[in-house]
């Protein structure tokens, strides 16, 4: 079960960038889980050559998201796999260290890939795959301005780390064929709302029970709060005369600008608070470390 080789590891440019940013922004070293999915694809060689009878299927792992925390904290128990995302493996980011798995890396990888409860089943296949992926992120020894990160992906297979190439998938023409691999798969809760206002005939349908109606009302309230006065009824006015259209649109934009302004101010304030808290934490840490 654990000796099935992964042929290709894919990661979207955005995910890798955010992973690298997270590791360089962290105060110390970090580690965490890598989530995504694996698929078995049978490449169809578009060749007229009759002898090419390649029926070998490729196992492709795509990393779509991650979860990170400082290295000194142990990894939490991994969440149960869902249909769309599985635990593929984990990563470790440590500054200025050789690009080789360490003692901790190997023990963690072994325990992850050898626990049968974490194994998942790749799409359109029947085999079961353990989370055997390991991504190592380091920074080069002399501080450099351009070359700031190094990374290497491994699959732990047969009691050894096998280096694997990591292919980065960026948006662009070549991305089209892989659109499905990186489509968002987080499900929003369904909000059962009606187009009220536009239709006055929202009379009671007596068959519905009260609880259902109550929930519906709550959802509607939430939606209205987000719309901030621009509920569907008002939007429909945009379809009316030209003068009304310009006025309404300007009003809409003003409100949006005000909202963005308010949001950015909020972000600024919270950032300042976070910064203050981090500095405070740093001072506490220094005191614990006996550096004061």
């Amino acid at each position: 079960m654990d000796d099935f080789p992964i042929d290709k590891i894919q990661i979207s440019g955005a995910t890798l960038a955010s992973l690298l940013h997270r590791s360089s922004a962290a105060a110390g070293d970090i580690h965490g889980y890598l989530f995504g999915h694996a698929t078995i694809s049978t490449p169809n060689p578009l060749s007229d050559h009759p002898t090419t009878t390649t029926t070998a299927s490729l196992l492709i792992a795509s990393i779509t998201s991650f979860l990170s925390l400082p290295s000194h904290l142990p990894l939490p128990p991994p969440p149960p796999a869902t249909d769309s995302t599985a635990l593929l493996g984990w990563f470790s980011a440590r500054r200025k260290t050789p690009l080789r798995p360490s003692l901790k890396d190997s023990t963690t990888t072994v325990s992850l890939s050898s626990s049968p409860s974490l194994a998942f089943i790749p799409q359109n296949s029947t085999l079961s795959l353990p989370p055997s992926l390991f991504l190592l992120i380091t920074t080069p020894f002399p501080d450099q301005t351009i070359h700031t990160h190094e990374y290497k992906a491994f699959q732990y297979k047969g009691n050894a780390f096998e280096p694997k190439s990591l292919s980065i998938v960026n948006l662009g023409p070549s991305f089209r064929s892989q659109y499905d691999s990186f489509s968002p798969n987080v499900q929003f809760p369904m909000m059962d709302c009606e187009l009220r206002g536009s239709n006055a005939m929202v009379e009671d349908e007596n068959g519905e029970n009260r609880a259902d109606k109550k929930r519906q009302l709550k959802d509607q309230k939430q939606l209205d709060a987000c719309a901030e006065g621009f509920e569907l009824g008002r939007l429909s006015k945009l379809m009316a005369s030209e003068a009304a259209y310009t006025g309404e649109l300007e009003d809409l934009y003003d409100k949006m600008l005000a909202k963005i302004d308010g949001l950015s101010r909020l972000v600024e304030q919270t950032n300042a608070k976070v910064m203050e808290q981090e500095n405070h934490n740093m001072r506490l840490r220094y005191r614990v470390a006996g550096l004061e």
Partner: protein
Amino acid sequence: MAIDTVPPLIAAQLNYLVSHCPFSVKVEQMWSGCKNPSLLDRFTLVIPYCLDYIKWDVVYNAMYPLAAPDIIFGPEDENFQPFCGGTDKSSKNSLTEWNSKDPARLLSLIIELRDAYMLYQRRRIGEVDDERLKFEISTMPSREGIEMYLSSGTEKPEEVKFAVPLLDMDLNKLVAGSTWRHPQKICLQVIFPVGKKYSTAPAPRLKLISSAELKALFSIEDFRLPPWLDGMCTAEYLPALEEMLESQIKEAVSSIETRRKFIMALTPHFGRPIETDPVFCRRATFLASSGVFTFLVHFSFSLQFPKQQPTIVLQSSQHFNPHNAPVKSPNLAEYPWSPRWELLEMAERIFDFMAEECLNFKKYCNQMNQQ
């Protein structure tokens, strides 16, 4: 905060390791892995293994010095994965329940890992397909502390190196009052090439290696290894070698006493030495004078004393060269000497020689000053 500090908790562990380790561990370099580059929390340890060194990087975290360190092994040891696969019994190791307040923790971790490394190398060599090696391992006497190493480079042929500690005696106790901190050892290095047929296998490469401080007592370079006969194995070779070595070491220890007696024989003539090496008696310095000319006489004794006569250097205490250093004579090794003389006669003859030689030296000093 001082520039380039090691957080105290980490420094305590590292200092304890360096000062208490049974083998001599060195720190090769230290650097920082956190955002504040003056906090050093990573270092490379140079650990002696199998008469060579292995380098391990120890990765602490200056931000969280309470956390256990991580170790990165050498690039050729990627398959060395200790503490893995431990189910319940073996899962307890130095890293579980790490206590950053206990300065001995890093030491016990390194010792445990080095032991694991020893087993790892032994396992690798057991897997090598070579008849002679299999035989060697099975017949290798069950003595303590044999270290082995399989070197497999891409450009070099595969070799297995054994480091066999010789002489089951405590060399530190042989020499009264020795100041050796680490246990002194003499090891035989045996290097076997891998993959040869037993019948055509060439003799292994042999070399005696001693700890550096032992050179004051016994010179390993002067020891002639007995020949390795065709078809021999290490277990056959060792007893004769050890016997020879043991008798020579005993001789070396007794020659300390000879040198001490000789220095004592010099005292009636030169007065009490102003400086001597009290442990190995390899050097002695006397203050002498001829009229108003005062000078120092430095004796240095080779390990072959009394077969080889001591080397004498005279040093004036009144004349200085242009660099303001006292004028010294060249090494004096040509003077009447016979190893068959009694120690008292040796001392007397040297004193007689010195009575003449000091006049030459005085002349030499005056010439130097006039220039």
